[in-house]
């Protein structure tokens, strides 16, 4: 890829020369500005977040009333307000330097990974569908169905250790795959638009779990609120450390990311997905079955989101509630977009969002800064990353290479 050909076709841009090593590729991406732009986007988003934090803090508003006579008071109050909020965010998500043992100091990092696991799994589901030109807004519903089936296996069936966990995980994946598969089949057989069907199925799933949690089979005996029994120990995803919630699910998610990468980049089926995503009519002309592709993509995408449901019910929470999906399905859309619909990009984006989720809670508890600021920062990061020319203009970064288009996302609503 050379600088003189900014309009080179996607295939050429997406595939760097084969002899390029990982290190070379990393350097190329670093120098081409895309990683720099990412970092600057995060800085810019944090800066705007800081303005919001400072402006809405009563302790800053007070000295701001006499700003023109003593501006230093306002600025130092603003600095205190912002730095305490952000250091709480950092200690909550990366390293707690006030702890004395290594294990406890790194506990926030484990919490970040715990939060990231379901985000990545569901994000992979959304990203995979994107690559085939489908807009999967239904991860939320797919997560719920996955959690229902995995949870039911977890507390309703009592199987031997080992087998129990495997059956539970598989049941969750199947649950998500069914919910996604409905969308694929309807799209392929009747042309029903996937955006409508996924939105509607989200609502159906939400009411379905609310109903189940009132039935005898799902409600915890003796509990008055709608929660399920705790899943059996044999069905829980093993936790790595005593004092953190980080569980085996994180490894499963990385395996899933590898699987999606292999599928998209190395397999015939993945090639068909991308071909249909790039141009369904051309793919049909080339002899591919577009409807079969839609069904498979949605089955797999749903299965990945179902895996996120498994993380929630067998790993993090360990019982079902009506809010088991915790908005992960919607964050997953942003994660997939931020990761430019590529598997490893999704992993990185999921980790970033996981860190913000993990740090937001102690930030709100410790400094009173509302956790909603996290949403603002998240969306600003994506917005800036998505518009490299804007960030380049603000920071005056020279253009060394044309920005790569997000694969499979150039088209609109799909056919």
């Amino acid at each position, binding site marked *: 890829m050379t600088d003189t050909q900014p309009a080179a076709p996607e295939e050429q841009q997406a595939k760097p020369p084969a002899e390029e090593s990982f290190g070379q590729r990393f350097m190329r991406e670093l120098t081409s500005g895309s990683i720099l732009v990412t970092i600057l986007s995060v800085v810019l988003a944090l800066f705007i977040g800081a303005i*919001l934090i400072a402006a*809405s803090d009563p302790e800053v508003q007070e000295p701001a009333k006499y700003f023109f006579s003593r501006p230093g008071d306002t600025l130092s109050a603003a600095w205190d307000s912002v730095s305490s909020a952000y250091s709480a965010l950092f200690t909550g998500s990366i390293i707690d330097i006030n702890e004395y043992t290594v294990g406890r100091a790194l506990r926030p990092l484990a919490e970040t990974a715990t939060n990231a696991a379901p985000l990545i799994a569901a994000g992979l589901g959304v990203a995979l569908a994107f690559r085939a030109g489908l*807009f999967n*807004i239904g991860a939320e519903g797919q997560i719920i169905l996955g959690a229902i089936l995995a949870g039911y296996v977890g507390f309703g069936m009592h199987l031997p250790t080992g087998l129990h966990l495997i059956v539970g995980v598989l049941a969750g994946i199947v649950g998500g795959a069914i919910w996604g598969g409905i969308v694929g089949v*309807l799209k392929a*057989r*009747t*042309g*029903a*638009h996937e*955006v*409508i*069907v996924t*939105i*509607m*199925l989200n*609502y*159906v799933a939400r*009411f*379905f779990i*609310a*109903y189940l949690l*009132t039935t005898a089979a799902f409600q915890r005996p003796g509990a008055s609120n709608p929660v399920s029994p705790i899943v059996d120990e044999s069905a829980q995803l093993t936790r790595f450390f005593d004092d953190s919630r980080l569980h085996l699910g994180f490894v499963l998610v990385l395996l899933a990311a590898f699987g999606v990468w292999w599928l998209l980049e190395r397999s015939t089926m993945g090639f068909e997905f991308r071909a249909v995503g790039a141009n369904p009519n051309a793919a049909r002309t080339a002899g591919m079955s577009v409807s079969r592709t839609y069904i498979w993509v949605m089955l797999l995408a749903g299965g990945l989101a179902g895996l996120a449901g498994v993380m929630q019910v067998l790993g993090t929470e360990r019982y079902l509630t009506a809010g088991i999906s915790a908005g992960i399905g*919607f964050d997953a*859309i*942003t994660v997939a*977009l931020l990761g430019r619909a590529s598997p490893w990009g999704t992993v990185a984006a999921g980790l970033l969002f996981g860190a913000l989720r993990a740090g937001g809670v102690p930030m709100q508890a410790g400094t009173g800064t*509302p956790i*909603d*600021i*996290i*949403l*603002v*920062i*998240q*969306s*600003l990061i*994506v*917005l800036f990353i*998505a*518009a490299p*020319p*804007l960030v380049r203009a603000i920071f005056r970064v020279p253009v060394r290479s044309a920005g790569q288009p*997000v694969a499979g*996302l*150039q*088209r*609109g*609503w799909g056919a």
Partner: protein
Amino acid sequence: MSAPTIQAPPPAAVSPEELALRPSWKTPIVFGVLALVALITFGILGESGQTSTFGISTGSDAWQIDPLALSSQPVALGLSLVCVVIAAYSAWLVRAGQAVPMWLTVLFTVAFVLAFLVWAVAGEQISFTSLLQGALALSVPLVFGALSGVLCERAGVINIAIEGQLLAGAFLSAVVATLTGSLYVGLIAAIVAGLLVAFVLAVFAIKYIVNQIIVGVVLNVLVIGVTNFLYGQLLAPEAATWNSPGTLPRIEIPLLSEIPVIGPVLFEQTIVVYAMYVTVILVQIALFRTRWGLRVRAVGEHPKAADTLGIQVNKVRFRNVLLGGAVAGLGGAFFTLGNVGAFSREMSAGQGFIALAAMIFGRWSPLGALGAALLFGFANNLQSLLGIIGTPIPSEFMLMLPYILTIFAVAGLVGRVRAPAADGEPYVKS
């Protein structure tokens, strides 16, 4: 009843054109399944000896009409038999090679919904007028949102940010109306809020050529984040100074509001609802009957051709996105000023996405979007009314019903819809 049978696959010699002309079996099949459901659950299994009572007029009406009391099971049985007959007739039509006409679908829907109503209300009483009134109230933001989508997407820009535009309109209208003490200034603020969100969408999507779906999704999150943040910091702690706008007065239109049943529903409304009627008609006429509309549609279908003819593609798109944002912002004001009288956290509650569905369901046309939005509003209100009086099935399934019916409708009756050809594709002059 003659159950619709699936025709044998067409012989291999049929040309694709001929195949496309053949009416589809989907509609009779969906009709048949629904008619059977109606016949069995509403008719045969319905409780006998109950009456369903429907209040027709409200106390203040000029003409008082007595409540309609129907004997539940026989009436539901009769209505579901009507459904069966329509299903059989549509099957016969398709067999004879004719398409199922639109009026038949409407008739089927009405008969099915009435059969369901009579069954669900057995032994109870509901007011027909308040059913329709509530349905309209729930539809208003949907209609505005869907119109915003139509305006943007007809010009070739996907607008996922409807949710954000509605929420921004709701937020700013409440705050500005409280600060200024004027509800009408609040309405203008709602329009400005929608415009602002749309402006960001337009700058990123058109100027910086960022993927339109990304920008839309992100803008929704951004608006939710900012409004939640400000709500937590300002509106919730000091509601009196920031968040007590009150509601718009209802304006009765003389004569029209005295029509029985529909008069009070349609013509005793706030100015936002009247603005909705006007906007729907204006957009419909402007898009399909004016030069402006022709240009917009040209830009959405074939920007290159439009450019060749001297239309400034990106300018048209920019303007339409802003226009759509203004419309959606006004719709957002209905949540606060038109209905509740205060802003609350994430009060648009996914309605922007339902509006998106209504736009697609209505095939990117203003009148279609209006119909779809009214249908969603009706189903939603029906479900909440029936939740209050209690029905034979768990309330969660009642809550699911509108969404499941939508899936049925999209899969069976609408099927393949076609977006404007250049929808979502940025235009770069080469």
